[in-house]
């Protein structure tokens, strides 16, 4: 994984968009995860490859919390979702030479 790697949803992840969030069934999870509020917004952004720093900047612009707090929340979310295979890193084609 290089510095230009970005996060994106794993194609094998199944999901439903609900009125109050997303229901997500990652490939490595037996039970679906319900994502609401901030988690739902991050998940929505991840439908296209995106850099974690860009997610932090976007969430910081939407919420009052400091950028540092948001960065922690995003990092925690990304770590959890990657652990169950819901998202994975890909090389950023836009950053390719």
């Amino acid at each position: 994984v290089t510095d230009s790697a970005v996060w994106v949803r794993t194609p094998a992840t199944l999901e439903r968009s609900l009125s109050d969030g997303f229901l997500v069934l990652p490939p490595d999870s037996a039970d679906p995860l319900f994502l609401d509020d901030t988690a739902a917004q991050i998940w929505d952004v991840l439908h296209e490859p995106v850099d974690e720093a860009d997610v932090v900047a976007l969430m910081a612009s939407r919420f009052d919390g400091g950028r540092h707090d948001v960065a922690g929340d995003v990092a925690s979310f990304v770590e959890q979702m990657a652990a169950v295979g819901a998202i994975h890193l890909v090389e950023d084609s836009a950053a390719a030479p």
Partner: protein
Amino acid sequence: MEGLLATAVLEGFIEADDDERRAIAAAHRSAMATCLAIERRLLTVEASLPPSTSWAVVKGPAIAHLDELDPALRSFGDLDVLVSASALGAVHRLLTIAGGRRRYAEPARGFDRRFGKGAAFPMPDGTEVDVHRTLALGPWGLALDPDELLARTAQLPLGGRSVPVLDRSGRFLHACYHAALGDDPPRLVPLRDVALTLPSAQTWGSVLDRVTSARAEAVVARALLTASCTLRWSPDHPALHWARSFVPSRRDRRWMASYVGPRASSRARTVRGIEALSGPRERLAYAAAVTAPTIRRHAFWWRTARP
């Protein structure tokens, strides 16, 4: 109907207090969790089958993703697949190896491939896979050529895979069988499926040819008229015009009475099934197959009753 109810509340078509909203949202979440588990099962089945297998997903996931406005609007409780008779044994074995246990045994050797409607396999994860040879019990299921349906499939992209489904007119035909020959009175979901899968006016002529070759005009007319009446759905469409002017034959009435009304029963459908088969050999084989369990049962009692 959880998705439609949740949407109706969200859009303000139905009033609900906070407790009711929470309950409706929870019910919708639960229904969708079931759908995702079934789609996971579908991907497992798809990955296990040899590519040459002639099969297709019917109903639930196909309609949810291809015909409904949003897949979250269409709930389903099991996985239905239509499988060519020649592949039934392989699919049954695959599901058994995966921990499935067939709900009812084959009534007679070879019955599944020649005359059966299908078999249900409850799986260890709580999902159920219904493996269909044809779309209905009784005469209309026997009159149908499932391989004709399976010859015209579309592809559903799901979970990074591509899953075969019936094409649009095949999905419409199945929705009509389900709505017209299933529960009496029909449930709302299959009636909505009829409306959702209605072919375009331009293709209706070719769809009607398929309906005619399956001798299913009465099935489709009943499904269309019931959907129109129940859902207050009356598009200016040649299919609706055709259904309103359709006059069922005496055979249609006889067959329909085995599915709907006071004389409807499994026994009546089984008896009428003989009329759908062509040739004395086929009819004799069918008669022998459907009476075999009864004969075996009587033989058992006869043997045990002897001193």
